[in-house]
Structures are given as C-alpha cells and as structure tokens.
C-alpha cells in the first residue's frame, strides 16, 4: 500500500538526526519522496514538478530551527505551499445584484452534476434562497427525470420543458428558464448541463451556446475527486472551451486523495468552492483548503473530526464523563457502550481513524476491521446485566457463557473483550491520576496500553492549549492548524523524546 508522506519522510530522515542544516542532497531526496506522494495522490505531473521546485527552493533557504527537526520542517513547508495553492481561504458564491443569479454546472460525464445540482439547490434553500433547477441535460437518457426526482427531494422546483433523452434544444431551455425564473420570482437559477468530454467540439460549442444565452454569474466545473492525471487536460480544455469561475469537488467521501483539486486550482487559477461528500442531499459543504492539503498528503483531518464529534456528542453526557474521569472514578462498560454508540453516529470507524494524523499503523489493522465488530462488541455488552457492566470482575465462567449465548458470540470473544476493557480502564485511571486531562503531562504515563495506545494519544496532544473561550479559540484555530500536522510543531519544544508519541518519535529518527 501507499505510505503516507510522513512515513516516507521518516525513512528519508532517519539518518539526518542532529544535522543543523539540510544539504542539497538531503533536500533532493526529500523532494523525490514528495513527488511520489503527490503523484500517488493523482496530482498532475506538471503541477507536481512546479510544486516540487518551489518546495525545494524554500527548503534550501531555511535555517533549521531548534524546535523543529528537518522532516517536520519540510512537511510544514509542503503543507503551507499546498494550502497557499488550494486557495488559502474559501470563496463564497457571487450572487448577482439583479436577480436571478445564474449558476451553470459543467463537467465530464459521471462527475456528479445532476446530484450536485440538487445538493446545491437544497443548500441554497436552507440559506434562504428560492432556487430553480433547470434540466438542460437533454443528452443522457432520463437525466431530466433524475433531476426532477432530485428536485422533489430537495423541495426545489424544476424547469424541464423538454423530455430529454436526445430530444430538445438545451440552449433554448436555458434561455427560457431565465424568463421563467423572473416571472416566478426565483432568485437563483441552477442549470444542469449534459456531461461532455473536453475533446467533443460539438458539445463544447453547445455549452458555449448555453453560456452565451444565459450569461451566468457563476460557471462551476464539477470534478470527481477520483480523477487521475487527466484532470489537467480536462480543466484546461473546459477553461479554454467554455471558461469557469469555480470548481466543485465531488465524491470526497471515498478514499481518493483528491490531488485533482491541486491540479485544477494550479492550472486554471480558479478556486474550489464546494465539496460534496456523500449521497444524501445535505452531504455538501464549503471547501476547506487546509483540510484538503492534509488529505492530499494523507495526514489526517482532525478539524473535520472535531466538528463531527461536536455534532454527535451530547454535552451533558460528556460533562458527566469528564467529571467521572477527573474524579478518578472507573470508566464502566456502560459508559463505554454509550460512547461507542455516539462514535458510531459519526461514521465508519476506519474513516474516523483515517482522519486522525499519525494513525498509519493502526489503519492497516483497521482494514481488516469491520464496523460490524462494533456491533458485536455492543451485543456482548448489551447481553450483560447492569451489575456486570458496572463491575466486570464478577463475570465468572457461567456468566460469560450466558453472555456469549445471549450475544451470539463465543466465550473467547467475551473473555477478550473483558480483558481489553480492563487494560483500557487502567489507562483511564492513569490518565486521571496524571492530571485529569488528556494532553497534559500525565499522558506519557499512559504507555501501559502498549504501542498502539501511544499512537492514539497523538490527537489530544495536538490540541493542547486550545482555549475554552470560543472567541479565543477561534483566534487559536489558525495557529493550531500547524499543530495538527503529524510530526509537526508541538506548541512547545518537546522536553525529551520519550514524552512524544510514536509518530513524533519516528519523525525525529528515534
């Protein structure tokens, strides 16, 4: 499997420990690794070349600071460069001063234009607009029907005067739709066009025709996150053929690293406005360049994780938990079950863990782990009596046999769960002894849980020092981004190697 960039760099830098400054040869080797990492992420080759040249230039001039080792520094440079190219900041939709605002969707076949049209409409509607969907994809069989169903689900009217499936003139439909929108007082018109190949001159001419007929305020290119090297050609030809003002990245809920985002942005200079992350209508969000940078580098996405956590964790429940932990009370199986169910609401386990930086080792194991394992664990716990959940020590042979029967598992599974849970409990106890808060100096002591659990302490660590005051926290967000990098800048220089989680230590060449 592909290694993450930080893993690659860790290997490269193994022998560099203690060097005050990187030699050109060191940097060359590093840049080669970066090149492979970017190519694996499907960033287009010319973009990779340019990018690497810039990283090299910056890395050459940089003094190695005391707090950072060379690998951390290079990763930081790469990440910064990526964020710069990806947009630095997110752009909003440009709304026309005189309604209706016209948004036209463009893209290859199967990029997800029709689905996206629905999502965009639903999103605009939530934000207080009255969008109108226009079925100008008269090419693909039943694309019009699809848009109608999508519009119905989104609760947005669809303008579809032509049956489609090869019948009708999309340019005329687009032109009429504007008048229709004006009379029906829709303030935004979203035009769904047929998928077209960049080499198809007829269809490109047709797209130009639609553009000229409706004079759109925003032309959005819809790009599949899974696209490979062809992203470059596609973006260039659409830019030259029709022109566009922004990009929407779809299917980001897969595991493609989405290097296309970088290619398209770099080559055309147009920003990425939205990201579509699922099959449901509300799986749609503004684009976050910093998160995308981490994703391209396979470095995890802690911010999204936090957001998701905020959505599902019940504040009271969390307060109770926090109190329990800080008072040194035991974390019971019941608590564990509740937390587990909350986590399940956040999505699949492997996806969540994937968002944590520095979890490369665990991820490999997680590949074999099915989310149904969680169900099985839940079933085992649910087959216990409240007393047993409170104190697993009372579980004797016959109780265990009963639980196994009740949960449809084997006694070994019950045993193993109880044993693992005991270890976890120990960790929790040590944590509360060590200061009551993860991320505080007590943390390194948690090592009792073995290698894996050490790796896991990385995320809380990265966030230490964030303020509880929302205003202050917002101010810290930007700075803490750097802290999110695996193997990046801990807020304060680490005292000793031993205090660092594995991932950090690996980067330091230990």
């Amino acid at each position, binding site marked *: 499997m*592909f290694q993450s960039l930080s893993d690659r760099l860790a290997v490269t830098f193994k022998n560099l420990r203690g060097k005050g400054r990187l030699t050109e040869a060191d940097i060359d080797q590093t840049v080669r690794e970066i090149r492979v990492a970017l190519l*694996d*992420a*499907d960033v*287009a080759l010319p973009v990779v070349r340019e990018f690497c040249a810039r990283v090299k230039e910056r890395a050459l001039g940089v003094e190695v600071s005391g707090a950072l080792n060379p690998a951390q520094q290079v990763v930081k440079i790469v990440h910064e460069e990526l964020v710069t190219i990806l947009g630095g900041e997110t752009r909003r939709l440009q709304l026309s001063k005189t309604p209706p605002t016209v948004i036209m969707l463009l893209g290859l*076949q*199967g*990029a*997800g234009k*029709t*689905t996206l049209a629905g999502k965009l409409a639903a999103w605009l509607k939530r934000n207080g607009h009255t969008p109108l969907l226009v079925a100008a994809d008269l090419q693909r069989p039943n*694309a019009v*029907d*699809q848009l109608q*169903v999508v519009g119905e689900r989104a609760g947005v009217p669809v303008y579809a005067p032509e049956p489609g*499936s090869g019948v009708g003139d999309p340019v005329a439909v687009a032109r009429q739709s504007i008048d229709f929108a004006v009379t029906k007082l829709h303030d935004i018109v979203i035009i769904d066009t047929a998928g077209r*190949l*960049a080499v198809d001159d007829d269809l490109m001419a047709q797209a130009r025709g639609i553009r000229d007929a409706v004079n759109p305020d925003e032309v959005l290119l819809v790009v599949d996150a*899974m696209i*490979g*090297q*062809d992203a470059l*050609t596609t973006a260039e*030809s659409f830019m030259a053929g029709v022109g566009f003002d922004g990009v929407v990245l779809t*299917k980001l809920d*897969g*595991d*493609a*690293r989405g290097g296309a985002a970088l290619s398209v942005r770099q080559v055309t200079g147009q920003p990425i406005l939205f990201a579509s992350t699922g*099959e449901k209508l509300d799986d749609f969000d503004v684009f976050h360049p910093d998160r995308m940078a981490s994703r391209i580098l396979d470095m995890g996405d802690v911010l999204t*994780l936090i957001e998701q*956590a905020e959505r599902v964790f019940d504040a009271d429940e*969390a*307060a109770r*938990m*926090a109190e329990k932990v800080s008072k040194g009370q035991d974390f019971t199986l019941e608590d*564990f079950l509740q937390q587990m169910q909350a*986590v399940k609401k956040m999505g699949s*386990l492997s996806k969540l863990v994937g968002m944590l930086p520095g979890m490369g080792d665990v991820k490999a194991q*997680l590949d*074999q*782990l*099915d989310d*149904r*394992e969680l169900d099985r*664990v839940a079933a085992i716990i649910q087959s216990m009596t409240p007393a047993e959940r409170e104190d697993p020590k009372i579980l004797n042979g016959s109780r265990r046999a009963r639980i196994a029967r009740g949960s449809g598992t*084997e006694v*070994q*599974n019950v045993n*193993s769960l109880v*044993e*693992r849970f005991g270890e976890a409990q120990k*960790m929790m106890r040590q944590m509360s002894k060590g200061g009551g808060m993860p991320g505080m100096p007590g943390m390194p002591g948690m090592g009792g*849980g073995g290698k*894996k659990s050490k790796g*896991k*302490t990385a995320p*809380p660590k990265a*966030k230490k020092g964030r303020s*509880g005051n929302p205003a202050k926290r917002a101010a810290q967000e930007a700075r803490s981004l750097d802290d999110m990098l695996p193997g990046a800048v801990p807020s304060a220089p680490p005292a000793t190697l031993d205090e660092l989680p594995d991932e950090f230590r690996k980067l330091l060449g230990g």
Partner: protein
Amino acid sequence: MNGTLYLLLGIFILALIVAVTVKLVKGRGELPSASTRAGLDAPPTAVTGDLVDVPPELAGLETVETPVPTSTLDVPAPTAGRLGRLRARLARSNSAIGQGLLALLSGATIDADTWQEVEDTLIVADLGVAPARELVERLKVRVAAEGTADPERVRTMLREELLAVVDPTLDRSLSTTREDGLPAVILVVGVNGTGKTTTTGKLARVLVADGRTVVLGAADTFRAAAADQLQTWGDRVGATVVRGPEGGDPASVAFDAVHEGITENVDTVLIDTAGRLHTKSGLMDELGKVKRVVERQVPVNEVLLVLDATTGQNGLTQARVFAEVVQVTGIVLTKLDGTAKGGIVVAVQRELGVPVKLVGLGEGPDDLAPFDPEAFVDALVG
C-alpha cells in the same frame, strides 16, 4: 470543565474503542469471521462468447449511427467493425503521448533524463508510479543487455514490455450463453458515475445484435431515475426490463430479473447495480447480497467492474475492494474516447489478474467494443 475537554474526551474514547475492538479482532484469531461470504467462491465458468472474435480485417468499417425512430425498435450496429473505431479513437486520445515518446527516444543517446521522461510519460497515462518505475527499470536492463541505442528498437522494446504487462494471452471473452438450460447472468458493478447503466444498455444492444435474447434487471433502486434510464435502453432494443420500487431492495429486483430470465428462457440476464463507493461497507454488503441472492437460482457468470478511464490511482483500491466482495471477472473501461488514457487498468490487471474485457468509446448507443491489448498499447507508444 469546558467544551474543548468534551471533545478531547470524545476523541480519546474513540481511541479507546479502537484499542478495544482492534485487539478484540486480533484476539479472535482464526475464528471464522462472520463476514466470510461462503458460497461466493464458485468460479464462473468461462465460455467463449463471440463478442470478442471480431476479425480484424473488418476493422476499417465505420459503423453508421442508427437514427432512433420513436415507435420501432433500434437495430444495433453489428459488433464487427467496432475495433476499427477503437483504434481510431485511441489514436486520437493518445497521440500526444505517443509522439512525445517518439521524440524522446529519437535523441542520439538515451540518458538518465530521457528515462525519467519515459517514466513521466507513463505516469501521465495514470499507470501509477510504481508500475511505471518497474517498467522503465526492466527496459533499462534490456537496453543495457542488448547494448542498443537505436530509438526505434527501444520503442519496440517498450511496446513489448507494455504488452507483456497488459498480457494479450488473458482470456477476455464474455460468458453470455445459456448453460444447462439456464441463462447466463452478468452483474455490472462500480463506483458512482463510471457509466454502469450506459454500459449495461450498450451491452444489451450488442447481445441483441448478436441474436441473443436479453432481460435487464434494474437493481439500481437508489439513484433517481436510474431504472427509467435502463428502461429507455431496454425499450430501444426490445429487451424486457425488470424493475422494483425506488428505494427497494436491489437483491430482490435482481432475483426477480433472473427469475424472469429463467421463465422467459432468455440467453442472458444483465443486472445493473447502483453506483457505490467502495469505502461504504454497508453498500458493499448490499452488493454481496445481490450476488448471493442471484446465485440461489443461477450461478453468476460474469461480474463486470466498470472503471472510468479518467480514474486515477484510486481505481486500484476500488478494484481491490470490489474484487473481494463480488469476485470481479472482468473490467469495462469507459470514457476512453476522451483524453484520459486509462492506464490504471494496467495496475489493476497486474495486481488482481482481472482482464479488461470491454471498452466504452463514447455516448453513441453502439460505442462499446471488445478490448484489444495491442491497439491499447500501440496507442500508448504511438
């Protein structure tokens, strides 16, 4: 106690859950995993269909697009002659890369930069970094061994090496004929937006053109109007389409389609499934179920994974996961008429041994052709 702490706790707990569960799995050791899908490993019987055996002499024939009369059935273009268009279109999409290679190799000497360029060219075709490197390494060794610097010779070698990777000896025939009085079943799978429904429709046309009877199963009950789309394809060639309610159980639609196929005594049942990202384990389980349920009546002869030629390195992961869940027997590479090279199939075939069987070359109803390794490679090296 503040808000941040809750989050820290939440994440810590996630970590705990992983620790407990992962170890639990490890602890389970050799216990048979519940996810083992027994009964799915029956190897599909390979029967040579005549789809592939197109005489290359007919290659020059240009297929005439049949206009669609509204009430009568379409007469699909014969399968013969499609190869010629494959060549023509591939040549169009790949000429830049081919010429690039030629220019590179026509220099007087072949130095490190040239090799790097060759490697880059292969990478641009989405071949992947590792396979491209490997190929260039092998080529270097051969060039050194032969001591040749003749660009033409090097180009031939490159072609040979590429061809060896694509492996023309693989059986690329589609199993579409009746067996033991039961229809052949073809399941079409893939991620969203690769062109599964279109491929199913085109394949139905090909089969009808070859004089087969076909039943289509619209097991994509998820995407809006997917069943209508397939219905349109079916109506054009007069194939029965079995469909279920939107949002219904795809496995039951597939079951009904096969049942219909058996009672109607047709030759082939084509089942179109909903696009699903390979990362969604729930949806992948659903797909496993579709296949399992179908196999209660008839063994599934072919599972075709539809890959979009524009797909990058993620295609390999997709293929790996789909192969694991439904034992993919062949790949359909679509949208090859664009500028994308579809080099990812080389990596897929190398890792999974699953051959590309068909290629989609455009939006026309007859733009589906058998895969020709030689044409594919020729186009790559120009």
